[in-house]
């Protein structure tokens, strides 16, 4: 089966099962945390890095800017509750606002904390919200 190229607007971040509304971009990062395990037994000068753990994060930018949405961002930041964050391809469903997940092979989700946010409100521009979620535990 041939692969189909995916447009950026169809690669979306999801929080607690729902696509982040009015999102303009998202960035997913998975990092293997490495440690150089080179010993005196190692021959040559090059390192021998070993993966000790994995971590992940999701950043999403949006124009989500109603009062309720902005308050929700602040509430989520001050809450100690973790949320389910993930990403997926969206599929075309009429009237769905491009928010219907397609259960793509690359879709993943896990528990995360909102560890950084910015609400930017400049004159004569749309209010922009940037959220960064730090994963806590495994991606599934």
């Amino acid at each position, binding site marked *: 089966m041939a692969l189909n190229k995916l447009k950026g607007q169809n690669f979306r971040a999801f929080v607690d099962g729902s696509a982040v509304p009015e999102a303009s971009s998202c960035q997913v990062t998975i990092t293997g945390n490495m440690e150089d395990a080179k010993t005196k037994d190692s021959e040559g000068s090059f390192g021998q890095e070993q993966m000790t753990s994995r971590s992940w994060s999701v950043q999403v930018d949006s124009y989500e800017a109603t*009062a309720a949405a902005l308050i929700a961002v*602040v509430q989520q*930041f001050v809450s100690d509750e973790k949320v389910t964050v993930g990403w997926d391809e969206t599929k075309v469903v009429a009237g769905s606002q491009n928010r219907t997940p397609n259960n793509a092979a690359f879709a993943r989700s896990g528990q995360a904390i909102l*560890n950084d946010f910015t*609400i930017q*409100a400049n*004159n004569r521009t*749309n209010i922009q919200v940037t959220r960064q979620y730090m994963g806590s535990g495994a991606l599934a």
Partner: protein
Amino acid sequence: MDKGQHLRLFITEGNTGKVVAMSTELSLHGSAQTENSTTKDTTDSTGAVWDENDIVGRTYDISFSALIASGTDTGGKTFADMLASVNDEIINWKIALASGEQNRVMGTVIASGQGKLTNVQATGQVSQQATYSGTINGYGPLVPGSAS
């Protein structure tokens, strides 16, 4: 969707709030300090190790920019007012939707709290408006507003 000009910073005293006059930019930034709390128990069903993180502290700050104007403004906070606030005293603030005359009528509060104005920087450059920017470091809790 609300526009940037309708989200404004108010410095509050008691039940009254004075908007930062002639402001152009506003940013609320929160950051959580996290600690990697992974233990030897931490593996997924495949035995893979994923970092677990927990929040151990939070900070936030507010940045704003405004034009510098001469004269007085009884209904708003001017550059002169803000200059006088650069000290160790706690100020009360609210970020709220604004409307009405001069876009200064406070509406739904998005967030509020206390802070200290720790930095004011002014710029006067030929062929440009004189501007200043400021930073309020949050002091204590960041309080979400409540949607009406």
